[in-house]
């Protein structure tokens, strides 16, 4: 890894963690073992909604190899978790609210003993009425899942006068869209290992936010946060999950109570049952337009199933509100978004935070409009699409880094180049297009990134950041930014990430914020470090600090061209002079909080834009859809590592293919019917389309070297592009995901039985 400076940002350098991952040396939490460690297994609720009358653990206690059985009474701390509303327990107290709620924990000498004993725990329940849809939850007289009722949160947005604009519009279309519950399905099931030595708890676990987990688990199990160290193990995929109430919490509890090291690993089935899911949405979307294709008004009403607990429901709600009108300049918008508790699995953060759902709806709407108006689907998006200076539904005037129209033009040209195969017999081929915008970072609140850089007197740098690489390549990108700024080789910079004892709190790996926000904080830290070293080098060279530049690890001065000073020499001099060998950078993007009633504000400092087009082959006999090609153009501001960017785009497309066609958590009375890969179908290599991933770069002035983000945007347009392509191929409009062969076959069969609707109204 000896990439030369000044060419680091913008180059597809090799991943800093690639060698370890390719040789089997990367250490995931499940790979960690301590002598004498305990193994843990939870008894989880098999009832969707019930009072706990009693928990009988004697039989489990007596099982050979069992060391302890814990219930809520054994937890010295608050036993409460939840980042936004602490409405969940580490071990349930008086009630269970979904199938999978944790009730009791067994610690045993072997995994087999723990599992066998957990099955012997008897819980006496009194069943309560189960509620399995948000409509039921909000109906008058519904059983209360939480003391305050079943409404988690409702927010509204109003801009202009949408009612009047809809009355005056030439064309109004209204449709209801439904999206399914989706599992993150990272390949690494959750795991955690803890040791408790001399009053210090150390927990190794995959986490998208180690510092939050440190604080939450400390309070929950009853330790001061300073006594808890969370160390991010290698993260085997995250996609928004892997924080809060993971096996690491239980390992810490068991270790605290027994003094022994403890380890817990979820099985795949447990990972499906226990962890959070993508929120299912019901979206009623009404759009009004003029005959010339100008969108005049949008009215969006969303009801979502947030499951048994709050988790990140409010974040997902607000993100969906911000984005539900799409990347279009619409003067009149109203929205109402309602999240309701149910006794289904818990809705959480998942790649896109509610935006994949609303993108499916708004991109279907604009496609229907185009068809009704006889317009080209690219042209209608170009006509209404955001440009620099456009105003969003929240009333935010966009800055300069807005290249939606360019991505539309790029994709249109590529689609024309590739062409369309002729349809034959029952095989119908067609392209569909979809666009998106996505705000980078938390919506309407502070979310600072923090980084610390140290140098030793040998000239070696260490970069400390609170966020661990979740697979997307953040550690590599952050080292690239540091190396570019310090104008040294990447090999001179070691990265320490996600260790709460060593690293600053950089915020969470979420909302595509890491490169933009934490990356900028790294750049600021590196600039400060460079200034400090430059000051020391200037003393050695005998020139003014401003006259110095740094190249390939050496300071040079134009005033004394024959003298050069290495980073190591500068660092040694700095130390001697008391100049700190450490520098910190903080970046918290500007925002204006959303007004709680009108939803007006400036929630994010910058937005990413993208267009994707999908070529599908639909077999009208079987309803099977083959996605042949996806063309994707993404405005990322600046690609710090182009291969990582296209890797995100390709991975996002794959996840989008699953969201469109195959992936669905099937629920029956709150029970997951398909908790494994034999019933929950992830796209395989055979399902992956050809991809053309194109990067658009319109720099964001506040980002590191102009960078924004791509992790979530990668996924957003894929599904509506595929669904719009299915319509273009067959005339069938899918409004409920996923478009499984069975669903599509039924719609094709039923087509002739219902009148085709080409007048304004429900399509």
């Amino acid at each position: 890894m000896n990439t030369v400076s000044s060419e680091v940002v913008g180059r597809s350098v090799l991943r800093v963690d690639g060698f370890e991952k390719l040789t089997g040396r990367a250490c995931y939490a499940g790979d960690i073992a301590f002598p004498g460690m305990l193994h843990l297994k939870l008894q989880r609720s098999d009832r969707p909604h019930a009072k706990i009358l009693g928990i009988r653990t004697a039989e489990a206690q007596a099982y050979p190899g069992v060391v302890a059985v814990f219930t809520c009474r054994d937890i010295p701390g608050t036993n409460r978790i939840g980042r936004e509303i602490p409405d969940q327990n580490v071990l349930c107290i008086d009630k269970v609210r979904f199938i999978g709620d944790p009730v009791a924990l067994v610690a045993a000498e072997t995994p087999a003993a723990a599992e066998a004993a957990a099955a012997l725990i008897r819980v006496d329940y009194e069943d309560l009425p189960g509620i399995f849809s948000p409509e039921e939850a909000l109906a008058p007289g519904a059983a209360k899942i939480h003391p305050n009722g079943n409404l988690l949160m409702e927010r509204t947005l109003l801009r202009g006068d949408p009612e009047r604009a809809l009355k005056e519009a030439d064309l109004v279309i209204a449709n209801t869209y439904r999206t399914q519950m989706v599992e993150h399905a990272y390949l690494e099931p959750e795991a955690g290992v803890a040791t408790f030595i001399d009053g210090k708890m150390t927990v190794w676990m995959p986490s998208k936010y180690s510092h939050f987990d440190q604080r939450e688990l400390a309070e929950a199990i009853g330790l001061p946060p300073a006594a808890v160290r969370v160390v991010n193990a290698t993260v085997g995929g995250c996609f928004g999950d892997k924080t809060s109430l993971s096996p690491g919490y239980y390992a810490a509890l068991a270790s605290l109570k027994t003094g022994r090291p403890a380890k817990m690993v979820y099985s795949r089935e447990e990972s499906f049952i226990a962890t959070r899911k993508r929120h299912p949405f019901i979206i009623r979307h009404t759009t009004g337009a003029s005959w010339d294709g100008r969108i005049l008004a949008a009215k969006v009403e969303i009801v979502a199933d947030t499951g048994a607990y709050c988790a990140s429901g409010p974040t997902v709600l607000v993100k969906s509100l911000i984005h539900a009108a799409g990347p279009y300049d619409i003067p009149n918008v109203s929205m109402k978004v309602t999240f309701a508790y149910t006794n289904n699995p818990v809705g959480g953060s998942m790649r896109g935070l509610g935006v994949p759902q609303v993108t499916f709806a708004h991109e279907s709407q604009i496609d229907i409009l185009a068809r009704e108006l006889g317009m080209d689907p690219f042209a209608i998006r170009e006509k209404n699409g955001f440009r620099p200076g456009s105003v969003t539904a929240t009333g935010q005037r966009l800055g300069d880094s807005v290249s939606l129209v360019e991505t539309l033009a790029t994709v249109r040209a590529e689609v024309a180049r590739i062409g369309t195969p002729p349809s034959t017999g029952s095989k119908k081929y067609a392209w569909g297009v979809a666009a998106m915008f996505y705000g980078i970072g938390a919506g309407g609140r502070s979310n600072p990134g923090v980084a610390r850089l140290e140098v030793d007197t040998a000239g070696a740098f260490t970069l400390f950041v609170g966020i661990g690489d979740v697979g997307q390549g953040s550690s590599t990108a952050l080292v690239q930014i540091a190396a570019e700024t310090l104008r040294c080789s990447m090999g001179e910079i070691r990265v320490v990430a996600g260790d709460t004892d060593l690293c600053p709190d950089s915020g969470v790996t979420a909302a595509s914020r890491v490169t933009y926000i934490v990356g900028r904080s790294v750049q600021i830290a590196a600039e400060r470090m460079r200034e400090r070293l430059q000051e020391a080098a200037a003393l050695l060279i005998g020139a003014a600090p401003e006259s110095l530049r740094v190249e390939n690890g050496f300071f040079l001065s134009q005033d004394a061209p024959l003298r050069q000073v290495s980073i190591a020499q500068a660092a040694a001099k700095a130390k001697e002079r008391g100049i700190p060998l450490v520098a910190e950078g903080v970046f918290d993007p500007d925002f204006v909080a959303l007004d709680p009633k009108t939803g007006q504000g400036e929630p994010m400092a910058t937005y990413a834009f993208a267009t994707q087009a999908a070529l599908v082959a639909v077999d009208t006999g079987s309803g099977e859809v083959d996605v042949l090609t996806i063309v994707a153009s993404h405005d990322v501001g600046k690609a710090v590592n182009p291969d990582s960017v296209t890797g995100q785009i390709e991975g996002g497309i794959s996840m989008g293919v699953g969201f469109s066609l195959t992936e669905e958590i099937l629920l029956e009375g709150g029970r997951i019917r398909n908790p494994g890969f034999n019933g929950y179908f992830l796209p395989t290599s055979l399902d992956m389309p050809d991809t053309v991933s194109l990067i658009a770069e319109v720099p964001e002035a506040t980002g590191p070297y102009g960078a924004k983000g791509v992790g979530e945007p990668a996924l957003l347009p894929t599904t509506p592009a595929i669904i719009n392509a299915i319509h273009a191929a067959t005339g069938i409009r899918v409004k409920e995901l996923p478009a499984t062969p069975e669903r599509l076959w039924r719609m094709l069969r039923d087509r002739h039985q219902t009148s085709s609707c080409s007048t304004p109204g429900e399509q």
Partner: protein
Amino acid sequence: MAGEVKIKLRFNGVWREVETRPDRILLDLLREELGLTGTKKGCEAGECGACTVLMNGRAILSCLTPALKADGAEILTIEGLAEEGNLHPLQQAFLEKGAVQCGYCTPGMVLAAKALLDANPTPSVEEVKRAISGNLCRCTGYTKIIQAVRLAAEALRGDQRRKDEPAEAVKQAKTAVYP
């Protein structure tokens, strides 16, 4: 609990005698007995491919293979692929192509690809896709993995690539064009 049974296997080139419970799967023998944690556990049901290792040169799912069945066999895991610290051409190609993200599917994916290339040094894109279709990856969308396998095939066939020649120079799978 049934008594321990003694078996002899060749792990990554070294013959070893190990005692195991007869009901143990090869995956647990590797991870827990031998400390070879490079082989990953993703589902324990033969559905994800993360536990793929080579047994006598064939790609097998170690989560579905009884340890006893491996008696006398030669087992190659990811730890045995690089020789003296030099990455195998497949590992090198995965690195260069950006085919690794979270890394959890990587060991199984690389070994499934090795079994393919050992049997078929010139696989087409379709053949690569089929060979790794039992190995799930949630991060990459497989595209760069497929490119990496083809790049490695080329390297293994002895095509002399200069070390710093950009990987892009190697012929990639082209998107189909419909005139």
